[in-house]
């Protein structure tokens, strides 16, 4: 599987990407001249202090925002100039979001939350339920299917969120401070789950300000003042070779 993937186009290819926006008449350079490659099966941490531009980068990678200049190929598709509706479709098919604050819908059960991306993809009800239950059992919550988020602990809620990200089987999981709202012990649990998912072949991009979290990823990219200041860690293909 690895040998095959090394020959493939990287899953994410960002070239000379910049993002500016106007704030009170002043132009803010949130990102300048960013180039990143993420291969299939990578576990990349993007680390930076607050205000460094890592949130903007995550929004761009997650197709929630468009860059001002530069190009972004996601799964061999140039997505930086797409229209809103097309971007929604890309998000639905290609990206599984895991947010810091879980972002589950409080009125829906765990199962219904996990089904949500599949509803927007137009998956028929029966298949949708099967896939959602499967995703929930991947994160070990098969016995919490009908619980509301308020009836679950923080760690369990984040696992439901991870299941939601997994449900549509997207090529990338994009996690924004996934342990930020959790205590240390459950944080470790969630990170364990993420690593396990990476081992199963999921590509993960993780955004954090916590160095100890980023060290658990295979690679890290440090962002400072909208620029990449440091890159480190092994590339997946090197690490995977015997």
């Amino acid at each position: 599987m690895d040998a095959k993937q090394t020959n493939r186009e990287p899953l994410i290819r960002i070239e000379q990407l910049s993002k500016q926006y106007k704030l009170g008449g002043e132009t803010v350079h949130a990102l300048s001249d960013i180039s990143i490659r993420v291969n299939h099966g990578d576990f990349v941490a993007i680390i930076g202090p607050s205000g460094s531009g890592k949130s903007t980068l995550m929004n761009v990678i997650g197709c929630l925002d468009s860059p001002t200049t530069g190009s972004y190929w996601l799964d061999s598709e140039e997505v930086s100039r797409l229209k809103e509706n097309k971007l929604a479709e890309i998000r639905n098919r290609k990206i599984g979001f895991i947010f810091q604050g879980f972002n589950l819908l409080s009125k829906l059960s765990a199962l219904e939350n996990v089904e949500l991306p599949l509803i927007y993809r137009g998956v028929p009800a029966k298949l949708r339920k099967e896939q959602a239950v499967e995703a929930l059992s991947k994160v070990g919550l098969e016995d919490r299917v009908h619980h509301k988020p308020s009836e679950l602990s923080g760690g369990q809620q984040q696992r439901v969120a991870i299941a939601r990200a997994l449900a549509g089987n997207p090529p990338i999981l994009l996690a924004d401070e996934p342990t930020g709202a959790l205590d240390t012990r459950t944080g470790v649990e969630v990170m364990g789950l993420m690593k396990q998912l990476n081992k199963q072949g999921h590509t993960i991009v993780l955004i954090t300000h916590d160095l100890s979290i980023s060290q658990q990823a295979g690679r890290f990219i440090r962002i400072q003042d909208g620029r990449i200041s440091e890159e480190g860690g092994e590339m997946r293909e090197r690490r995977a070779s015997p």
Partner: protein
Amino acid sequence: MNVGQALKMAVKSILGNKMRSLLTMLGIIIGVTAVIALVSLGQGATKAVTDQVASLGTNLLTVNITGRGSTTTISYKEAEELANIEGVEYSAPANTQNGNVKFGTTSISVSVVGTTPDYADVRDYQLAAGRFVSQIDMDYYQKIALIGSSTAEELFAGENPVGQTVLINGIRYKVVGLLAEKGDSLSGSNDDVVIIPITSSERLFKSKGVKTIYVQVKEPEQMDAVVAELEAGLTKTFRGNENSYRVFNQQDVLDSFSSISSTLSLALGGIAAISLLVGGIGIMNIMLVSVTERTREIGIRKAIGAKKKDIMIQFLIESIALSGLGGLLGVGLGIGIAQVASKALNMGVSLSIPIMVLAFGFSVFIGVVFGLFPANKASNLKPIEALRFE
């Protein structure tokens, strides 16, 4: 995402906020309830009136004679000749005067109708006892009288009046018949009446001729022809003075009633439209609040792949479901109130399916119109900003 899915979400959201949903719908509920209840009662009342008019016979024509100069009446022979035309079933000239009727020590004032035997057929009077005026009574100026049921009640207090003698304006009359109860009509009670032969009436009141002719037409289609011929005859009699007479058609009464009732319906419809409009604004208001409240939810949905259209449909369906449910509850409540009111006030109700469908349809339409703005606002939210919303 399909509409069924959106409907499921809408129902969930409405049920998740029962109190608020009910209050939101209240405007629509009250509006629709008012329409259904008022229209049902109004149509019931109209139906009662038109039924009453119809029971008098829609084929009935009344000729009123006012006369010109010193001739204010025509003789009853003239009247009968006038009405002796093609298409007339019966005709009865009548000379109605107020008389003082006395039996024993009881004395009342009542309208005394001098007329011919055909009067019973024309006015559809039934006999409870005795006989009606006959031709021979007229020929011999018989002093006989028939008594209406209320008048009989007042004068005889339950005794059988037939065979008794009453004094009409001091002259002795023999009661030969009792009229069956007929009820009220537009021109007042039909039972407060004394009927005597027209020839006797002319003598009694010292007034020659008749002022009224009742004409029963055979078929409704012949109505216009008969009216035209009557008018032609009357014009000849009064030498072209058209103000001397008036031919009065029951159909005209019916027509004027239905025009009153349609004006009323229009006014009700206007009130209903206004109250539904107010209800719709209420829905829009709450939907706007709901969009703001659920900004984060919208952000999440958009982040995981909901398109503009999906969010739009979700909120639009929710507002339609609110207004539709409100409309449905309103129809139910309206029917209930109409039934209760009809029992309590002893009024007839006439439930009209088209009005219910219209009221329900209009409330759904209100949901669409007033849901569009909030739904559009929701669908235009930027996912990043919506996700950042606390």
